């Protein structure tokens, strides 16, 4: 008896396939947080950036994110083909050849870094290059299949955009930029682990050591609560430095309390367990969806305060 290898049926790629190769949903979050960092930097320091340069720098962040996504899909195409959730991606579905995805990722990496340098400075361009390397190589190739801490350490890749946005305006990286980094860094594990509670069987199938696979759903739910407990005070740090004002403070408190409530409900549930009820899995899904809303709303508050002249810091009152 021989092992049958099911090759994907070849189909002709469309523009949408190439767009999907760049993970557009992740790209949206990356662009949004990067732009928020850029706007906050300009507002906090009084340094103006030419609107066209700001737009091109934001585009460079988007392209860099897409490049990293394409490299990730190139490397992970073997496991993507096995997992139901990812089997329709452009490479496993047979639309885009692997080598084309890699070429697209590498070319876009170069283009994005060059555009960033032209639109801003070498520091922002260097940070963008490093963040692509972080996601494409450190996370995808070294961590993802090696350790259950893959998401924790790999989360650094997604945390760079506001730092890049800040550096694009000012040419340096002050504490405020690193606080925005820390918010995304501590947000990533509870966000992704909520998803992995739903998809842990898929990860087990391809031997990716996600936390629910290696340590079980109960430990994962505990870790979600621990990271959320760290995230909430970290999200309040902008109030101490003056980066966040009243609007941000109210948003961070409300959103943080809701995220914590989800994490507490999750730890009391059986989400991810073999005997999990439909309601438990629905709770994990809702936590995942809320976590996306959380980050959008939190950085939206930063954006609203600094772009609309509504920044009234609490410090100095």
């Amino acid at each position, binding site marked *: 008896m021989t092992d049958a290898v099911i090759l994907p049926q070849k189909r002709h*790629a*469309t523009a949408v396939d190439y767009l999907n190769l760049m993970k557009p949903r992740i790209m949206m979050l990356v662009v949004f947080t990067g732009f928020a960092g850029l706007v906050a930097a300009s507002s906090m320091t009084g340094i103006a950036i*030419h609107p*066209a340069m700001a737009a091109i720098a934001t585009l460079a962040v988007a392209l860099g994110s897409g490049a990293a996504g394409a490299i990730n899909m190139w490397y992970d195409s073997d496991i993507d083909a096995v997992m139901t959730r990812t089997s329709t991606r452009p490479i496993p579905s047979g639309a885009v050849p692997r080598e084309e995805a890699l070429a697209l990722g590498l070319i876009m990496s170069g283009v994005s870094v060059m555009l960033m340098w032209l639109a801003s400075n070498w520091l922002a361009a260097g940070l963008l290059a490093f963040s692509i390397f972080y996601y494409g190589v450190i996370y995808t190739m070294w961590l993802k299949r090696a350790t259950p801490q893959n998401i924790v350490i790999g989360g650094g890749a997604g945390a760079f955009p506001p730092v890049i946005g800040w550096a694009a305006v000012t040419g340096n990286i002050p504490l405020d930029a690193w606080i925005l980094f820390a918010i995304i860094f501590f947000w990533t594990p509870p966000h992704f682990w909520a998803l992995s509670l739903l998809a842990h069987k898929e990860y087990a199938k391809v031997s990716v050591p996600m936390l629910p696979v290696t340590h079980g759903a109960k430990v994962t739910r505990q870790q979600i609560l621990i990271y959320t407990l760290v995230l909430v005070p970290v999200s309040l740090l902008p109030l101490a430095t003056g980066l966040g004002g009243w609007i941000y403070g109210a948003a961070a408190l409300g959103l943080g309390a809701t995220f914590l409530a989800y994490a507490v409900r999750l730890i009391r549930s059986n989400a991810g367990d073999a005997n999990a009820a439909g309601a438990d899995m629905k709770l994990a899904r809702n936590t995942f969806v809320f976590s996306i809303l959380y980050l959008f709303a939190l950085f939206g508050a930063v954006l609203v305060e600094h772009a609309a002249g509504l920044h009234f810091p609490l410090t100095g009152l």
Partner: protein
Amino acid sequence: MTETPDPAVPQLDAEALKARKRRNLWLGLALAGFVVLVMITTVIRLNTGIGVSERM
């Protein structure tokens, strides 16, 4: 005398040719966009003097 197709060169059907044409069009547009963006940044840098001091 008739030309025989080279067996080493894959023969594309009409649908594949159409898809290749579409891809080439997008590639052309992307390249044109890149050229325009480089031109815009260059003009702005020249007009505002960005990068002049750091290269001196």
